[in-house]
């Protein structure tokens, strides 16, 4: 994947997080690709995890695996999420 595509996807994913979870105060620049999304970072919670799973499926056709520790690893940060989308998107 080229650098430009990589950056485009990063922005797209930030938008997806902000829109799917209705984070009113967060702008694209606020999401550090390597900071944790859950807990102390962006402060997302268990309901957000479920919403994010649905949004990824809707937008990219990604079906999360059953092994929960793996699912959570993908949600650890924006960068991890991006790696998941790049590897597994079907559209």
């Amino acid at each position: 994947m080229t650098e430009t595509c990589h950056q485009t996807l990063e922005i797209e994913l930030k938008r997806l997080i902000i829109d799917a979870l209705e984070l009113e105060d967060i702008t694209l620049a606020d999401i550090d690709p390597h900071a944790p999304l859950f807990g102390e970072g962006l402060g997302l919670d268990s309901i957000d995890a479920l919403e994010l799973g649905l949004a990824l499926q809707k937008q990219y056709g990604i079906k999360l695996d059953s092994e929960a520790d793996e699912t959570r690893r993908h949600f650890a940060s924006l960068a991890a999420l991006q790696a998941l989308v790049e590897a597994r998107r079907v559209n």
Partner: protein
Amino acid sequence: MTFISLTQLPWRNLSFRHECLPNHWVCSASLALHIDEWHLWLADKPAGRWLLCQQQPLAFCAALIALWESGRVAVLPADDRPGTLSRLASEVDGTLPDAPGPRLAKSAETRPRVVPLDPSATAVVLSTSGSTGNPVQLAKRFDQLDAELSAHAQLWPLTDSGVISQVSHQHIYGLLTGILHPLCTSTPFCGGESRYPETLVTRLQEASAAGLHPVVVSSPAQLSRLPEHLAWHAATPPARVFSSGAPLSQAHAQLAERLLQAPVIEIYGSTETGGIAQRRQTSHSAWQPLPGVALAFQDGGLSLRSPFLEMPQQWWHQPDLVAPVDDGFMLLGRADRLVKIGGRRVSLDHVECLLTALEEVSEARCVDLDRTDGRLGAVVVLEHAFIPHQRDARQCLIQRLRAHLFDHLEPVAVPRYWRFVETVPSNTQGKLDRTLINRLFADLDDPKEPRWLGEHLLDANSCLLTLEVPERLAFLEGHFDEYPIVPGVVMVQWAIHYAHDIFGHRGLFLGIERLKFTRALLPGTRFTLQLTRREDGIAFSIDSQEGRHCAGQVRLQAPKGGQHG
């Protein structure tokens, strides 16, 4: 299936070994070993009440049973927030660690002589939000738990079942349905990561492969977010799916029944009362009382007598609004300021108290926005000096408030939407009513609106509004990618829009005069919009702490019969 009550120590009498289940399922062999490890650990510890906070069902069960068999009481915190745990830690005799540590001696020597438990002894102490907003603790005796478990066994026998729980066992519903009922009937069970739909599918398949009929213990948070694409059909359909903790919408009940191919049984109750009633709303919308529960309806309220209550002979008033119908009752909502978010009971008063404990907060109103995601809004009154004027300041403040609340509340209970004001907007009765709440949060659903934070008339012909530029304002998009600003035309549109609102001008736009843009208006900026009615339209100015951003006059065609034209 044989049901053995808790006081008869079902875990010591039954064997529910299932060789073909993976080891995240709790079965008797693994359990007995872990119970003994806890006995060993507890042997030289004080008696009394012990704080138990453990997410994994096996570790939780083993510790719980060891406490019970050694005559101790388990205190279960409602959540694992540091503030919650430290508050409770000072009220108990000890806190159990995550694991009992390595085995040092033979367990047989330390296991107490196991005798039946005293039905009138306290088994667990649960936490919930009281109607006053303060957390309250509720003790449950073994006879209360056993009465309710026996009702479950009668209504929903676990015959050749495997129970998969998606909810926390630190609360009464998850404890009874996901842990104790399986324990009393030698039914294998699992929890933990099963709360994720992907994991649930795998657990369903594991139960099927072991020849078991799965039973799912769930809640509206999960059932309303079941992904369509998962391989729900690959497993034996569950015998039933339970939902409790909050109302489940009819659409979500239908969705869950269609995907899981199983009846969805809702249980209505509370920590104080245990289960009160149940229904399967796809076939019948009225709630039916559980066996042994007597109901009385008065003035839209609900009272009950139940063997699951602390005092079974006394009438208990449940703070919910109900409407009796022929064969049961309908639920109409809470009569107090408690809301349910993600199945957790949250007291709006409690959130407000936590916020006002902060130095800069003089008053706080926590509001249920009736959004599908259940997220709360907060209207926070700050001293003038603490009002954030720019995005960074606002965001820092929100971070600080959220961090404070995270210490005391579960993440889902922390308000997501914040409005900072110098006085609470009020209607003519002096109340922050639903109309005003809707105005304060209108920009969430309408990306063209500024964030409205209040307005007041300066005199008969002029008005001052306090507004903010939402970060998600639609007009920011594409207007300088690196440096988003509010386009000038949008500022003029806002002026006209609010003039219509406040002065009732409905005239046609005729033109703009004396228009000056002096400063860019950035996302997150708090600003005032001053509107003055003129003979031929309105004059407006937009100012922030930085100074003037824009001013001008808009000529509007006067309404019919007006002086102009």
